[in-house]
């Protein structure tokens, strides 16, 4: 029998990761629950003034999305590292960056995509301006994969450390800041009736840059962590 082609291996690993998550459904809900909870707490804490809430909505939603993404990062490689599957992946005949990309895609599908689905409800709850809502969805669609891609580098670097959590946040957070700034600013511009295409273009640039570079960096970092 022949070896699987690269695409087949990619799809196989993606499916494997989705199956794993599906059999551990509890973990799937964690980041989403966190995202919803943080956002619902804001109106309770600062008071239900529609004008204030609708003005700070983009910021709240994006900060919550960013923290939710960070919370779930460790899950990309942790269980594979602990049971030795990561060794097997590194020793597979397929190029590691492609396998990494499959794992990051799976991670985004189970952490980023649910945020995209629930975001309109939360935006409505915070009274976000209607014109800004499509842009909110667009920024989440473009920028949450960037969070997963950048985060995977940080996780790969810290996976061998026993208490890598804090170092992971310190490593990854500065790289998340530009995403946060451009995403929130895009929504704000569109809420004021301005054109947000400049910020969206920046986010797209981040996405292409991260998608093309981060799998290589992650694969290299994983090799370092395992040796």
């Amino acid at each position, binding site marked *: *029998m022949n070896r699987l082609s690269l695409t087949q291996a990619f799809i196989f690993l993606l499916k*494997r990761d989705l*199956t794993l998550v599906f*059999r551990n459904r509890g973990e799937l809900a964690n980041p989403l629950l966190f995202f919803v909870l943080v956002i619902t707490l804001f109106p309770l804490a600062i008071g239900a003034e529609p004008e204030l809430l609708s003005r700070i909505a983009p910021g709240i939603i994006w900060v919550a999305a960013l923290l939710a993404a960070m919370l779930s990062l460790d899950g990309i490689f942790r269980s594979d590292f602990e*049971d030795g599957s990561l060794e*097997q992946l590194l020793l597979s005949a397929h190029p590691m960056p492609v396998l990494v990309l499959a794992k990051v895609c799976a991670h985004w599908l189970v952490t980023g995509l649910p945020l995209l689905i629930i975001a309109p409800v939360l935006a409505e709850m915070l009274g976000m301006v209607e014109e800004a809502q499509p842009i909110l969805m667009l920024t989440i669609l473009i920028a949450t994969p960037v969070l997963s891609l950048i985060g995977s580098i940080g996780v790969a670097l810290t996976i061998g450390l026993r208490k890598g959590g804090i170092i992971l946040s310190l490593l990854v957070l500065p790289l998340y800041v530009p995403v946060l700034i451009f995403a929130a600013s895009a929504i704000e511009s569109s809420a004021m009736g301005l054109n947000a295409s400049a910020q969206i273009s920046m986010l797209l640039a981040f996405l292409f840059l991260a998608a093309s570079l981060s799998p290589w960096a992650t694969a290299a970092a994983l090799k370092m962590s395992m*040796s």
Partner: protein
Amino acid sequence: MLKIEDLACVRDDRVLFEHLSLSLEGGQMLLVEGRNGSGKTSLLRLLTGLKLADEGDILWQGESITQLRADYYEQMNYIGHHDGVKRELTCLENLRLAQAMGKPADIELDDALERVNLFRYGDTPVSNLSAGQTRRLALARLIVTESKLWILDEPFTSLDKKSMAYFEGLFEQHLQQQGLLVMTSHHDIAMSGSNIQRLDLSA
């Protein structure tokens, strides 16, 4: 085929071994021995390329394994301390994964499970298996994928006598087919013959 040249391994400023040179041809086996902490696992990980050598080089068919990478990994199978099987997946799913990541052998997965005495467990999640059964499933990777070089770190951990005998038979068969085998083991091995090289790292 597999050649180690002047290899050294340093861990936390302690030299585990240095000036290690040897070569292994098809049909030969290298049995690495030594007390705990003498660098057996480190040597095996060096041979897989997971760990980089502090000094020296490892050659596969005349080329350094750090340069060969995928070409080397396609012909190599490593089973370490960790079984490398997913607990949430069933036995069959795990074997399929092993095949997808390596070079599949021409064998039905059910036959492979039967050979490692897990026939009725195809659809059982690994989390329901005992430690010995999980180890047997990990070792079944050797059957479902094709590779010339097997690197095994304590393959007999938690296995009963009957399974040990089976896998020793499998190893002998692999050697007869001109395969190469590198392994460590604290268990007394029934295998013998002139094709077994012993390397004692504590000496």
